[in-house]
């Protein structure tokens, strides 16, 4: 079974550039660098009638995180705050599609034991704080307890997952796939 991190799902959104801002861009849309890979995986799963899973409740902060990543390095020279708000708004609206396109797994807040595990096995991560956020742990807990006889894949760009991928596999039976390699699964 294939479950996705919210940020990865948001990275499959193609943002349309409003007319006023087109003078600053070569293309009419903005996409994440892994966009085509994520879409390719979505299509492959669709063609094989394999459902996609995600974890709820949705963490709204992820919209800002993904939005900021997509906007990084762009050279908009007019009404910048509005450009930002428009991009965030499109990501929010993308939520309607997300709502109906994934099977939901409820995040599990009983994370004390999992947290202890990561504290005991702390690693030095490159981009993120060493210990996964509580929200990440609620996902691991929920996915671990979700009954399925299939291999559990979890696609994420978050180092809190792929930085511990071998441990997450051996301890929780979840195969973490880095977002940028998701088309290879």
């Amino acid at each position: 079974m294939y479950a996705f991190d919210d940020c990865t799902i948001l990275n499959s959104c193609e943002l349309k550039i409003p007319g006023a801002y087109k003078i600053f861009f070569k293309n009419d849309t903005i996409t994440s660098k892994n966009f085509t890979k994520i879409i390719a995986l979505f299509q492959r799963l669709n063609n094989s009638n394999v459902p996609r899973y995600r974890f709820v409740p949705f963490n709204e902060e992820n919209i800002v995180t993904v939005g900021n990543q997509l906007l990084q390095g762009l050279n908009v020279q007019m009404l910048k705050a509005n450009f930002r708000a428009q991009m965030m708004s499109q990501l929010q609206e993308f939520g309607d599609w997300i709502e109906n396109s994934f099977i939901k797994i409820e995040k599990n807040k009983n994370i004390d034991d999992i947290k202890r595990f990561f504290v005991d096995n702390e690693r030095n991560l490159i981009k993120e704080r060493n210990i996964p956020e509580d929200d990440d742990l609620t996902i691991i807990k929920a996915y671990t307890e979700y009954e399925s006889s299939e291999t559990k894949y979890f696609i994420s760009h978050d180092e809190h997952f792929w930085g511990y991928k071998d441990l997450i596999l051996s301890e929780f039976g979840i195969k973490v796939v880095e977002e940028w390699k998701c088309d290879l699964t």
Partner: protein
Amino acid sequence: MRLTKDEAIALVLSFSKKQEISSPTKLNKLLARLNLHFIPIDIDFSLNKYGSFNANLGALETTPFYQRETYEYKGREVSKFILKEEGRKLAENATHKIKRILKSIEIEELQEEINSLSELQASQISDEEHKKLFVDVDDRYKLIERINTVHVNLYDLYREMDKIDQNKLEEINLAALIEYCFYLSKYLKEKRFKDIENAGYEFDAYMLDYYFLYGLEIVIPVLRGQLKEEKKDQILINKYYQYFINSAWGKYPFSLDNNNLNRLTA
């Protein structure tokens, strides 16, 4: 969020006395009134002698949502509009839609206002609108004063924009709203109303110019308040942001979808 023409008509009819409106002119006025409540609608209004006007509304025929009926009034044949069952469902959808931008109490106030206005003559409704928007030549000095005050106040707020953290969606929208309002006021002052002092009554003027200026005056204290609040009011900010952005979208020069907007912000 923007109400379609049919959604707006169904909403206004559902709020009116007996769920009917006694003339196309009155329908015009009541639909235009949604602008004063910051509800973006997909209907363009221009200025005629009696205020906001859209010629297409006069030619409306019966649809699955409302019935156009003719009746005799003072020896003249006039039309009225009556909400149909499908229209009631559409009005419910429209109400659901506006809940994203208006609080329940504001929707109730809107309902009461439309209900009471629906009993007035169209001319009484437009008189009231004229007074609020300063469209009359006699009120020109008030209009100019409004433009200048609004622009100066928004300039002050624009200079404070950097104080907003922009880590949350409501903070991002607040910054965008301040920025948009400031540049919109600049456009109104320096381009649209530049020579208004010597102009006559603006027949055929785009009503959004007047609605926006009125709206900017209303939004200034809200922006000031929200700048100070640690926890921003998402619905409140969204209400004004959606109104300015979506009312302009696709039909007004100062719009984020205008490919030449850079010429208006310079």
